[in-house]
């Protein structure tokens, strides 16, 4: 055994296996990230994209973004509101479903499997589906709400500044529920049944064993689910772009859609790069904190 271990240790042959993938990622991810940083300190627009004459203008793009209008601050705020709202609801529903399907009844496995479907649908299509369902006159959601008497008039969900955000949040929760459910369900299976049995012998009721056993033992899973969920939700792009394109009047503008708009609708590439960079730095810091946390947990 020792020899085998030694054989595999300190063997640089490994680098040859890794090199092709690493080179690819450095070329198409690493280099673009650096390029994006450089772009954000230049002034590249449709005019000077081709001739290559690009002056460095320091932090001007960033300063302009924060001071010229309030779209960036609105986007930052919207991104945060969107992310936190989605996380709260998809986590609660996902958790409830995970606990429910953890019971061994005849349909538990097949039905839980089918519930994964929403997570796999291409997000463009999810956006299309919910744009249709939230339609003012054609939408089934207005019909349901009218039938049960919650609204009297049709609501202009996606074309009014107050309701567009709740509508896109609703659509994203639909995508996020399966993700939360399956991860929490996996966490639940690790908890030994004996713990619940001995707790009930000791006179604990179901609620007590939930708070005293399930929640503390699930803590690592819950933390992973929430942090990963935050990262995935914070970078939302397709869904909002398809449903509202950030409108109306920037009411659903998030960092990624704003960056896209600046670069590819207004052709202010450097400004778009600067917004993308702000998004990148936020996510990078959160990712690093998360990874550091996971690694220290694993080593402990």
């Amino acid at each position, binding site marked *: 055994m020792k020899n085998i271990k030694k054989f595999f240790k300190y063997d640089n042959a490994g680098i040859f296996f890794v090199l092709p993938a690493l080179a690819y990622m450095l070329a198409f991810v690493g280099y673009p990230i650096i390029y994006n940083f450089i772009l954000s300190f230049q002034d590249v627009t449709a005019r000077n994209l081709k001739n290559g004459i690009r002056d460095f203008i320091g932090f001007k793009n960033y300063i302009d973004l924060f001071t010229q209008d309030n779209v960036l601050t609105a986007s930052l705020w919207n991104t945060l509101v969107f992310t936190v709202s989605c996380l709260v609801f998809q986590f609660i529903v996902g958790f409830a479903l995970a606990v429910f399907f953890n019971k061994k009844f005849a349909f538990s496995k097949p039905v839980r499997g089918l519930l994964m479907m929403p997570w796999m649908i291409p997000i463009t299509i999810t956006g299309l589906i919910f744009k249709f369902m939230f339609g003012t006159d054609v939408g089934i959601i207005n019909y349901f709400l009218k039938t049960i008497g919650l609204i009297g008039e049709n609501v202009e969900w996606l074309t009014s500044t107050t309701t567009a955000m709740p509508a896109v949040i609703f659509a994203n929760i639909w995508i996020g529920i399966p993700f939360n459910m399956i991860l929490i369900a996996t966490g639940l299976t690790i908890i030994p049944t004996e713990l619940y049995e001995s707790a009930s012998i000791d006179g604990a009721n179901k609620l007590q064993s939930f708070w005293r056993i399930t929640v503390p033992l699930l803590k690592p899973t819950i933390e992973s689910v929430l942090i990963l969920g935050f990262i995935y939700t914070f*970078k939302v792009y397709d869904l909002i772009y398809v449903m509202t394109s950030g409108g109306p009047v920037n009411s659903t503008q998030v960092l990624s859609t704003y960056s896209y708009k600046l670069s*590819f609708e207004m052709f202010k590439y450097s400004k778009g790069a600067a917004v993308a960079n702000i998004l990148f730095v936020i996510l990078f810091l959160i990712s690093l904190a998360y990874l550091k946390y996971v690694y220290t947990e694993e080593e402990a």
Partner: protein
Amino acid sequence: MGAEVKLSKSKNAIYCIVSILVLCILLFPLYWILVTSLKTEKEIFQIPPTFWPGVLNLNSYMVQFNSGDFNMFHSFGNSMIISLSAMSIAVVLAVPASYGIARYAFAGKRGIILIFLVTQMLPVSVLLTPLFIMFKNMHLYNTFFSTILADATIGIPFSVLILKNYFASIPKELEEAAYIDGCNKFTAFLRVLIPIAKPGVIVCGIFSFLYAWGDLAYGMTFILDQEKRPITAGIFNFMGQYGTKWSYLTAFAVVTIIPVALIFILMQKYIISGMTSGAVKG
């Protein structure tokens, strides 16, 4: 909560009924677009809405065969080419990389793992503008290659991280035996380890395909011509032009979902294992 506790018959029945209700509510949107795609344009706008088409109308699908504006089946083919190519690149690069990381200790290994972990969490927007300019300079703009190359960057880190765990779980004695039988490091990897890690390789293939299939941003940004665009970008474009043509739009949606649904039905166990192992470990 007890995982192994058998439920009584009546409780079992109640749980089954509740689970079916949950299923109906959560999957209703999918049912709804399928039904809508089979209705006539007039019936779609009818109030109260019909929950099953009064007249079965396949026209929204049939008209695609000779429509000039946006040919759905053509775009479907584009998406297939793009997704299968991106999947191939991701798998071919990720399989050896994950093996190297799982089995060998070399300088900078931790840093390399970190690179893959962080890139998995990257927002698409960060790469869009720089890749757009890069592809223009490389004359890859408005070709399949640009989108294929960009889509593969999503599949690679995911695949490396999943497969790393697969390879790490294979007993090292197997390789030792292969060396005794005259294999070198590379032939041992090809002939012994890849076959054993096959389920993991399938998971990676599926996810790399699905990531590319679902991509909108790259396909829309790097390909200009409608006839070269993947189906997602084509649909988005169509939405911009004919936003209320819901009979066609829902038909496009159904066609785009078909490969996903097939993969889902045929390979469900791989998908769940991919989601849980990939996501929790980040």
